[in-house]
């Protein structure tokens, strides 16, 4: 026995929980508000418009944000670990800014970043001979520098500016006493070979490796685990295994994303979703990226830590940051390939690291990425 009001009340009443999550709407509200208050809305939409160069459009992700992104910072939670407070309104924020108090989790940030990455227009894979221009901002222990770099997609040639002159470098190997161009870099991965295993850090290799990742997060991590276990070995203590592997997987995938100047459709989103499932990944609010924009850092801290930096409002990825022990404390254990991430002062792998140890920090951000006709073009 039903009546029309009961049937209507029941209609669409059982909704999946994910569509009821208001986190994205909340961020959208903050973004709209910041854009409106700073007149940045038009610039933002133009920047991501159809007419933009594909690589630039895609690499809004890593790019300097300009006024639009700076505007978003006005609504940022900073310094108080996500707890909203009246005192914060006196801290120089926009008088009309709305601050949301929320203790962010690493997984939450990464899922948000995955959603944001999924909304970015895909670009087709470029030909192997195409040149990629990158302007990279680097901050090393407080010293900021900007460098212009060019690299062919396959990595066979690269170029940089030195004293106003373009220096070009070609990857070669010696055969019969003569240097031979290493054309193997331009060849596709042989059938049956895992692209992650032969990944060499060049843009095309990174692109192919990312494209090879299977979609479910567990499958992504499964592929990566095989590679990092092979290259670093497996910790002997079972209790440490899970965390140590998670750290390696995070570092591997974060570096893979950075190395891939161009990213295949959906790969970035898949990687973030996979990273969100890793245990022991921490989040730090109130950070700044290489450019000086406000950022949330997600990753592993301490010696040999690696973090991805995200815009705290839009959750777009801004760059990457690494920490290493100072050179005088570097040992094969603390700085070598097999080093595990330890927290200074914690039960680390090296007795020389203490709470007072000042770690070297390097932060990187792409100011611009573009496909260009030739080295020297921007």
């Amino acid at each position, binding site marked *: *026995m*039903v*009546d*029309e*009001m*009961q*049937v*209507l*009340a*029941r*209609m*669409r*009443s059982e*909704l*999946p929980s994910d*569509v*009821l*999550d*208001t986190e*994205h*709407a*909340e961020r*959208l*509200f903050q*973004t*709209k*508000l910041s854009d*409106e208050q700073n007149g940045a809305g038009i610039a933002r939409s133009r920047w991501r418009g159809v007419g933009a160069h594909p690589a630039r459009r895609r690499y809004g992700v890593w790019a300097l944000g300009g006024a639009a992104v700076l505007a978003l910072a006005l609504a940022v939670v900073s310094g*108080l670990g996500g*707890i*909203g*407070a*009246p*005192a*914060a*309104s006196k801290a120089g924020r926009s*008088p*009309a*800014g*709305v*601050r*949301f*108090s929320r203790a962010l989790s690493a997984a939450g940030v990464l899922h948000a970043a995955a959603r944001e990455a999924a909304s970015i227009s895909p670009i087709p894979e470029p030909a192997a001979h195409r040149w990629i221009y990158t302007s990279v901002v680097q901050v090393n222990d407080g010293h900021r520098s900007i460098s212009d770099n060019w690299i062919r997609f396959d990595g066979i040639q690269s170029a940089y500016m030195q004293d106003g002159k373009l220096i070009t470098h070609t990857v070669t190997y010696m055969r019969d006493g003569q240097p031979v161009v290493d054309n193997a870099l331009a060849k596709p991965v042989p059938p049956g070979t895992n692209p992650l295993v032969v990944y060499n850090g060049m843009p095309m290799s990174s692109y192919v490796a990312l494209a090879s990742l299977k979609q479910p997060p567990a499958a992504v991590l499964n592929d990566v685990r095989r590679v990092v276990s092979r290259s670093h070995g497996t910790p002997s203590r079972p209790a440490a295994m899970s965390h140590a592997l998670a750290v390696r997987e995070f570092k591997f995938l974060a570096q893979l994303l950075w190395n891939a100047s161009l990213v295949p459709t959906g790969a970035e989103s898949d990687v973030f979703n996979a990273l969100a499932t890793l245990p022991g990944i921490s989040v730090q609010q109130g950070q700044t990226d290489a450019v000086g924009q406000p950022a949330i850092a997600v990753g592993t801290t301490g010696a040999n830590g690696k973090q991805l930096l995200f815009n705290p409002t839009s959750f777009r990825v801004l760059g990457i940051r690494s920490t290493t022990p100072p050179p005088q404390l570097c040992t094969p254990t603390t700085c070598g390939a097999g080093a595990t991430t330890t927290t200074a002062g914690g039960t680390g792998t090296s007795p020389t690291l203490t709470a007072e140890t000042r770690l070297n920090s390097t932060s990187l951000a792409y100011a611009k990425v573009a496909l260009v006709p030739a080295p020297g073009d921007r």
Partner: protein
Amino acid sequence: VRSEHQLLQRWNDEQLRASDAELISGSVAQPECFATLFRRHAPGLQRYVVRRLGPAKADDVVAETFLQAFRHRQRYRVDEAPNARPWLYGIATNLISRERRAEVRQYRALARTGVDGELWQFTDEVDERVSAEASERVLAGSLASLPSKQREALLLVVWAELSYEETAQALHVPVGTVRSRISRARVRLRRDLEAAGTSESPDEEQLTTTDREER
């Protein structure tokens, strides 16, 4: 550190206890008060918008609703309306009306196929929804053919669970107008259900709050 934490805690507690009107008036001088209003009402509003437009557009409508509310918060009549729901749902209704065609298209698709494609396409539950009640399919067809003003009033009452008075505030019409719109909408729905042979007269015990209120 402890005293600062206690201060923050007390501030948060006060925010949670404050009425909507207090939060809105407080947000004029202290904008972060609006965040509490968002947290309080966004989940319900999100649910309502998802039911009407599907998840794809819901985030944007909810965000835009609160943006417009924030923009006009100084004009909110604090003394007359301690509860902000009618105000917020009224704004959302205006925004939803811009998507009228998409909304009607969804209802028609549900009526025709029995699958709530727009709403459920990202889930694994499509197969279950194929066997959606015949009565729901009939009502989807009815909703598609209702005049928009009747549909708005009806869904604010049934899906947003606003009272007739709150619905009148949301739509800026007299409460009598809401009653007549809903009454006409119900006649249409009932007629369609009966024509499809999927409805029987309701027992007195099964009358909804809305029924009693209307009587």
